[in-house]
């Protein structure tokens, strides 16, 4: 099974709402619901209260040195 057409999701999380979201890693998965399940399973080392996933293709660069 090729993974070439799969979506790379950037995963962000925080432990308190007064904190900013931190980048914690990525998940490669074409199915959106499974990407969420996998992110929760993979990045469970901290007691996060908020986690979001963003498709890498939706990120826009503002500066590129």
């Amino acid at each position, binding site marked *: *099974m*090729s*993974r070439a057409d799969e979506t790379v999701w950037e995963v962000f999380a925080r432990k308190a709402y007064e904190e900013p979201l931190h980048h914690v890693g990525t*998940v*490669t*998965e*074409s*199915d959106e*619901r*499974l*990407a969420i*399940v*996998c992110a*929760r*399973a*993979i990045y469970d080392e901290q007691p996060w209260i908020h986690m979001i996933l963003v498709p890498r293709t939706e990120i826009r660069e503002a500066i590129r040195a």
Partner: protein
Amino acid sequence: MSIASSALGGSAVGGATATMISLIGSLADNKGALGRRYGEWAVSAPTIESAVAAAAMAQDELGHARSTYPVLAKLGVERDDEGLDSGCPLVAIEHELPDWASVIAANLIVDGILTTWVATARDSSIEPLAQRARKILQEEGAHRIHAEAWLKRMCRSGGEDRRLLLQRIEEMWAQAARWPGPGDHRGYGAAVSEGMVRSRPDEVRRRVRDWLAGLLEAEGAVADLSEPTDWSGWDERIRR
């Protein structure tokens, strides 16, 4: 010796409580086995994401087994031992699964049948069972998402992946569809009448079949998900 076989004396078979003891004991046996099978693939799943998901599902299933066995004590059944490595699960998940297609077929069919049955016990008159059922159902949502996503992926990849998955689904269904038992089972009927469980065996099978057939149809695939007809060799004590 399994929980179920140790609990069911010959004269008790047929009653609502005896049927529920068999179902609950076998549910725990099968969840324990499913947990071990998922766990074995946590180091060799095709992607790191699914390896971690398999480990998480293994943890869930072993937790469900561990929390389900004590329900038997509420029904007056003493277990032979306290381990999770005993019992009589379905033959299909008794030993290490040979390929990833078998893992996904077990995820779809065995997990699907057991979870659908657990859903029919959500409001059971056996209160400890109802409590466990609600907790189990919360966690099983992720298992269903995993199974559905992998079915789509393997069907869309075509070739051997698709062929083998459909074969494993049919093999798994032939065994797991028998788990709820015959549609006209008297003890099961009595359990439904007494509010211990909501739906009869054929209704449990129909729900899983409809869900699965819909998923397969969306991918242009079909599998034989026939209603079991030959119950001559079926043993209520171990539900296989």
